[in-house]
């Protein structure tokens, strides 16, 4: 990625340049492209987590940035731009799901595909472990997996993940926490060690 010409400026400052009609169009456009540089990948990742389809996620991502371009003037600065953008992305995805609700159900992807990059070029060492983690993640229910991936892999704050999932921050925190524990159980070498804190099954056959 090229150097950010607005390096050192906050997202909100860069957006302010985009909407500043006193500035030349070229400067304003450069400001917008800088925001795209900053958020394109993450907005796509969020849409992908929600929609589970690379092409649908790409469409939704484009729509999100179109809405940013058209609606930037309504951003008042009460929220961080990131949060604002993620909320728009979530709404676009929700609309997308609603609009396509009549389509046949989306086929469930391979475990590896669910959590990793759609066009992942990686062939480095550790692939086996990654596959094991991806498979373990796939044992989680979709909402827990989504919350965990957004926070632990995509790097969203709990507050941002709360916006994406439309849940209270505390709920996201506890969901992520529980998902980590379930993942720990699934990844345990013996496959059965209980890191979830749940009461283990008592051995009912051993009573004497």
């Amino acid at each position, binding site marked *: 990625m090229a150097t950010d010409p607005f390096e050192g400026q906050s*997202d909100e*400052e860069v957006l302010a340049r985009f*909407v500043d009609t006193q500035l030349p169009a070229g400067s304003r456009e450069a400001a917008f492209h800088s925001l795209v540089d900053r958020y394109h990948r993450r907005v796509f990742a969020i849409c992908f987590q929600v929609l589970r389809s690379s092409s649908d996620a790409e469409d939704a991502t484009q729509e999100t940035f179109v*809405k940013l371009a058209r609606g930037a003037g309504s951003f008042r*600065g009460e929220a*961080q731009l990131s949060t604002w953008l993620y909320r*728009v992305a979530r709404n676009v995805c929700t609309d997308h799901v609603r609009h396509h609700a009549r389509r046949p159900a989306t086929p469930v992807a391979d475990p590896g595909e669910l959590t990793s990059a759609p066009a992942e070029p990686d062939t480095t060492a550790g692939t086996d*472990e990654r596959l094991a983690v991806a498979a373990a993640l796939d044992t989680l229910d979709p909402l827990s997996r989504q919350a965990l991936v957004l926070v632990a892999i995509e790097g969203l704050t709990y507050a941002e993940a709360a916006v994406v999932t439309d849940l209270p921050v505390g709920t996201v925190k506890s969901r992520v926490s529980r998902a980590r*524990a379930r993942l720990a159980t699934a990844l345990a070498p013996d496959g059965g060690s209980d890191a979830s804190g749940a009461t283990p099954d008592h051995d009912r056959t051993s009573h004497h």
Partner: protein
Amino acid sequence: MDEIERLTSYLDGGLAADERRALEAELAGDSALRARLEALRAADAALEQLPATELPEGARQRLDARLSGVLAEVLAAEPAAPVPLRRVAGDAPTSLEATEIVPDRFTARRRRRALPARVRPGHPRRGATL
């Protein structure tokens, strides 16, 4: 806070000092609890192995192509007094309030982004030695 949240908060360095000390005292005397903590730490480390989602090949070019017309339109808009944002036919209703363009509302407030909240296994808060 239940046990799972205590352990994950501990790993994230998110426990208050007194809570941390209390948990460390428990850990010192409870090998099963230590095992659960270590399993969580291992799971966090495994998660770190997974790459973040990458953009599909050519996605940026396709986005730029989609945006070029939109940006030309937005940038060519009259810089007159605050005007309502136009809603283009076919656009789905947006959560963005179509209100006024008020660039002067953007003060030069510098906000450090709170990112990332990425789980950092193996880096408990300073002083946490277990």
